[in-house]
């Protein structure tokens, strides 16, 4: 099927030459190799191995796209009938009651805000720490130390989220109580640190949840940033050193500009994970009937934790549909975050 394009490309045409700073491109997999045995004379252009591999690779690609499309479609189909039953505005209402199927009242505003605020708070904590760790591991740590250290960080991502949830509620929350009390006392005039709608003493606040989330997303941000920083071209680093740059100046003039886009998209990956985190937040966040008041010491529920808590209601399709509609919003939110991350990475490539 590609005979024409293959025919136009003589066997001698190799890679047009490495571009600066880019490893030489792999030779085109479709470039014909002169036939060596008679059996191959019949099909000189594409060998069976190539064809099979291309089929498998293309199939996998199509499969994942279809799968995502199917998930989106499923969410949409399940959500629409329930949305029709909604008695309040889905996007702007703060009410959520699905108990009475004749009077379904549900709006996602609070869920959305709690989800976004807790994840954003987690990101604010995790980003600088991850940056510090990644720079330490790639620039400052002796090789012998960097490896085991990196493994330990990666290990953090292997801890099940239920463990994080229990740790957050039983261990971290009591530790954070005095800090929370001090913050509300000293900085309470700032809405973010105002007295919340749940007990600080019990610790089921967005504050606790955000810190646990920060720990949870730290490994992914660190790991990706580390990879990116490690790939800073040695020639740039040498150039900076030869100009008389100190270690920190080398980092500032070469490593950070080179790795910035990777770091930001790593953070977006982390944000995506935080947005979808379920069990840990389900355990930590205290339920409340009061509306979200923009305080870190509020309780509430995120999309994911709300849906998980409502599992017993799923036997009624109307009620389940309401949660699926909420899930759809989470899906879109995560999708947007990932799209932003992609755009940032793409912008970086252009610039290279």
């Amino acid at each position, binding site marked *: 099927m590609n005979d024409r394009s293959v025919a136009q490309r003589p066997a001698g045409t190799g890679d047009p030459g490495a571009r*600066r700073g880019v490893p030489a491109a792999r030779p085109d997999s479709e470039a014909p190799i002169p036939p060596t045995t008679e059996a191959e004379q019949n099909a000189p252009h594409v060998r069976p191995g190539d064809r099979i591999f291309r089929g498998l690779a293309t199939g996998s690609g199509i499969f994942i796209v279809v799968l995502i499309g199917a998930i989106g479609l499923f969410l949409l189909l399940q959500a629409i009938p329930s949305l029709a039953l909604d008695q309040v505005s889905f996007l702007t209402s703060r009410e959520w009651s699905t108990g009475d199927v004749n009077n379904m009242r549900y709006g996602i505003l609070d869920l959305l805000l709690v989800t976004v605020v807790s994840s954003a708070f987690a990101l604010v904590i995790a980003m600088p720490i991850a940056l510090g760790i990644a720079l330490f591991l790639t620039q400052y740590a002796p090789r012998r130390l960097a490896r085991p250290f990196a493994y330990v960080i990666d290990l953090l991502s292997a801890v099940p989220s239920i463990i994080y949830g229990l740790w957050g509620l039983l261990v971290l929350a009591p530790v954070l109580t005095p800090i929370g009390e001090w913050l509300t006392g000293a900085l309470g005039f700032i809405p973010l640190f105002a007295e919340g709608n749940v007990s600080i003493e019990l610790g089921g606040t967005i504050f606790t949840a955000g810190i646990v989330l920060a720990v949870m997303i730290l490994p992914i941000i660190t790991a990706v940033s580390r990879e990116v920083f490690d790939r800073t071209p040695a020639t740039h680093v*040498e*150039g900076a*050193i*030869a*100009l*008389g740059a100190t270690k920190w100046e080398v980092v500032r003039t070469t490593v950070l500009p080179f790795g910035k886009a990777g770091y930001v998209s790593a953070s977006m990956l982390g944000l995506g994970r935080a947005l979808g985190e379920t069990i840990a937040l389900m355990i930590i966040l205290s339920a409340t009937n009061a509306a979200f008041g923009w305080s870190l010491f509020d309780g509430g529920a995120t999309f994911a934790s709300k849906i998980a808590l409502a599992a017993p209601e799923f036997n009624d399709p109307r009620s389940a549909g309401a949660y699926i509609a909420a899930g759809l919003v989470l899906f879109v939110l995560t999708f947007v975050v990932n799209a932003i991350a992609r755009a940032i990475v793409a912008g970086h490539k252009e610039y290279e």
Partner: protein
Amino acid sequence: MAKRIDVKDLNLFYGKFHAVDGVSLAVPPKNVTAFIGPSGCGKSTVLRSLNRMHEVAPGARVEGNVLLDGEDIYASSIDPVQVRRTIGMVFQRPNPFPTMSIRDNVVAGLKLAGERNRKKLDEVAERSLRGANLWNEVKDRLDRPGGGLSGGQQQRLCIARAIAVQPDVLLMDEPCSALDPISTLAIEDLITELKKEYTIVIVTHNMQQAARVSDQTAFFNLLGVGQPGRLIEVDDTEKIFSNPSQKATEDYISGRFG
């Protein structure tokens, strides 16, 4: 400005590997010295030891002295960062900082040294770009990224960056090996120009280039695999290429090497 270099009994190591054995040579000021020799003979390593870049590699070690106008740059009181600010270096592959504009690339060294005066920086940028024979080609796009230039222009940008800090010495590690013949010629002309102001040491695999641009040539060689590189002889370029005193040098420059 231009200073002389005296290397005395220099031994260089990478971990346990003895890379260069007992090199002693003198580089006069305002003079071009070429290092030639087969790959792996340690000429780049010696060059990198002249501005303390050698020790950046993990496990690298230096024994011996390198005197810059009589002052040992390996003395314990000397800060290697300061040494590199006074001895510029140009690398094999052009390596302008890709995130910086052409102007910022040129003045990067000055900014590292703490110069913030915008007017001064602009002056230096123009002077250095003129010095590197690049000004006319880039004066209308000083704010564009340095990575957008051609390879030869990028290399001249790197030279401009190196001379912007007005170094005592300029080291060049095969500066033309990634360039086409026309760009190579431009750089060679530039080296001849720069010689009036700077002490230059250049590593090259191109013997015609060594013959064209240098006043003095040092020939390095390996006695065998795993053996350290040695300085075989150093003399006036004319003498090395017409009547070298060592047979190995003659074999190498006449292509009968190995």
